């Protein structure tokens, strides 16, 4: 068992008829993802060809989920319409199945749209939102697997390391590092770096902790906010599996700014040093260089008697 998305999960693609949506849906099918169709308002009834196969398109997420019993959806809808696409999917999953995973890849959604969308999703507790502005979520299989997003599928392999990250390409770096010590991944989750997003670090850590396939965790943070600090404090109390961490942005310069309001919300300034310190205080093994994530992970696995 992996986290949230199983290897054979039935997946819909919102915005499947758009350029981005079609391109990535094709790559998802190529990887082995069980795509069952897509949704684009106004394009219902047509089909889209992915990897030489035709896939149906619905006008409405309600119809798409009713007809396919889909488990999850990936959103490649442009920013002006993306928040509504999230809410449509959440409403449909909640009404029809009481559960579902909504992955939003779109970058550039207005923050106040996301405030509304996240509140809407949170009122439907069976629905999980991942993203927006993220690479998505992938559960590698024995052959193929479920790739819900834009990550390069071929760098992954099925295994026992859970990865959670705010950043896109840095997640790929972490995947490559696990591979460099012959470890595969259970599930890799890009939670996205937008100010207001869905699933956070703590929910991912909790899911990895209770997932049998996952035996160790890699957590990649970035400067800004205090989600990493809170996750570290939570992990110290609740996570028994080894965690390896990295935070990007240690050299980001303090510079010009306007107003003071942001700096005083939570007290902390969200610097990399603050976050590394919180990681270390929580017993998370830190790499100061992402190229060392592999060796730090190997050491942690040995220490835990897993290698």
């Amino acid at each position, binding site marked *: 068992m992996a986290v949230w998305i199983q290897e054979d999960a039935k997946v819909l693609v919102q915005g499947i008829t758009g350029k981005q949506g079609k391109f990535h849906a094709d790559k998802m099918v190529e990887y082995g993802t069980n795509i069952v169709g897509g949704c684009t308002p106004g394009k219902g009834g047509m089909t889209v060809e992915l990897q030489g196969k035709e896939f149906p398109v619905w006008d409405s997420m309600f119809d798409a989920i009713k007809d396919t019993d889909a488990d999850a959806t990936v959103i490649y809808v442009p920013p002006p319409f993306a928040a509504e696409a999230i809410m449509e999917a959440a409403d449909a999953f909640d009404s029809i199945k009481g559960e579902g995973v909504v992955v939003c890849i779109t970058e550039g959604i207005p923050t106040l749209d996301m405030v509304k969308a996240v509140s809407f999703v949170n009122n439907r507790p069976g629905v999980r939102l991942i993203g927006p502005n993220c690479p998505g979520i992938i559960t590698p299989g024995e052959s193929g697997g479920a790739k819900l997003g834009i990550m390069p599928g071929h760098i992954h392999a099925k295994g026992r390391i859970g990865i959670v990250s705010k950043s896109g390409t840095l997640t790929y770096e972490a995947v490559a590092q696990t591979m460099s010590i012959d470890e595969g991944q259970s599930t890799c989750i890009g939670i996205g770096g937008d100010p207001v997003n869905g699933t956070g670090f703590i929910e991912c850590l909790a899911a990895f902790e209770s997932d049998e396939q996952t035996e160790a965790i890699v957590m990649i943070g970035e400067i800004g906010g205090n989600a990493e600090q809170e996750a570290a404090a939570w992990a110290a109390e609740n996570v028994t599996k080894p965690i390896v961490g990295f935070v990007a942005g240690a050299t980001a*310069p303090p510079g010009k700014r306007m107003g003071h309001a*942001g700096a005083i919300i939570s007290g902390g300034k969200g610097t990399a040093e603050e976050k590394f310190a919180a990681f270390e205080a929580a017993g998370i093994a830190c790499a100061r260089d992402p190229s060392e994530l592999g060796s730090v992970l190997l050491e942690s696995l040995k220490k835990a008697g897993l290698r």
Partner: protein
Amino acid sequence: MQKSVSALFKGGVHFPQFGGNMNIHEYQGKALFEKHGVNVLKGVHCTSVQGALDAYDNLNSKVVAVKSQIHAGGRGKGTLYSPEDRSLVMEGGVKIAFSKEDVEKYATNILGNILVTIQTGEEGKVVNNLYIESGCDIAHEYYLALLVDREAKSVLIMASTEGGVDIEEVAEHTPELLHKVHVDPNAGLLGYQARDLALNLGLKGAAHKSFVKMLGKLYNMFVSNDCAMVEINPLVRTGDDEMVALDAKIGFDENASFRHKEWEDVRDLSEEEDVEIRAKETGLSYVKLDGNIGCLVNGAGLAMATMDVIKLYGGEPANFLDVGGGANEEQVKTAFSIILEDPNVKGILVNIFGGIMRCDIIARGVIAATESLGLEVPLVVRLAGTNVEEGKAILAASELNIYPADDLAEGSQKIVELISGGDE
């Protein structure tokens, strides 16, 4: 906590996790306040000394404030320097004038000179705009801010009786004096929330009513204008128990620019770095730094990590540059030319983890750029991910002086070595 993050950076930079904010001047913010029914004093925006004198005559107020307009806080305690020789011109970027002569003196000392405040960095900003504002009878100064709280995922309103001072000090030493209200996006700002905040500020009678009315209007303005932050410091209670905004710091969420064409009228490009604007136009995120190793990376997180590792091996990054997820040959070329505009650059590290982006395309772009730009500094290229073998083969086959690297650590070490070798 969008703003505290961008607080660490130059305003308006597109690191994805910061969102980008577009800031406006105080005088533009006050016009927006007025439009939405938030009390402000009478004021006039001007760009010349004569304009300031005319404004003084028009305002017909014995006392006026002469205020420098730049996109940074701390103006009152800032210092003005001459752009020619950086000699001191005047202490204070916001001045109270008691006569027309004062207005002339202050306007002359401010316009065209460089204002350095705690938020501008040492280089400061040239002041091209002035705001001349009527005086008022101040009974007490408060602090008020609205912004998006990324942890609570909602709009946060903060207010304090300790206005007109450094609010970060208040937050640190007397947090009990900072009152917070989170607004449920579905319910909007509720009457009791505004009333409770007014009570916490000790406002009674007419002032209480004035505050509650103003806060409702401010919240509506915040939402309908896609603000990222509104800060009023100070918000004042006048002798007549009216609540009036004496300052206005407003930032918009740039992600919402597609539905706010009116922002083009208030955008002040002179407040943004020219090269950063050009980078943005080609879909690149670029921030100039003080070091000598240029970086070209895909993805903001990886770009930051690349800077970190360069520093870890004893080098100093010259820039942050994210070419994005799907860069083409042309963008890679533009990225190189932007990096090379910086005369401090002594070497370049390219770090690409190809996902959507294919390494062979990047390799061709790198070669095309180095050839057409006549690259003279050492170049280390680290490629990983999609089509990495083809990419490496293309680089290896070229006659150019390109050093390959297999991982970020090796690439960083190599570029640091090459640069220090060149100095000897």
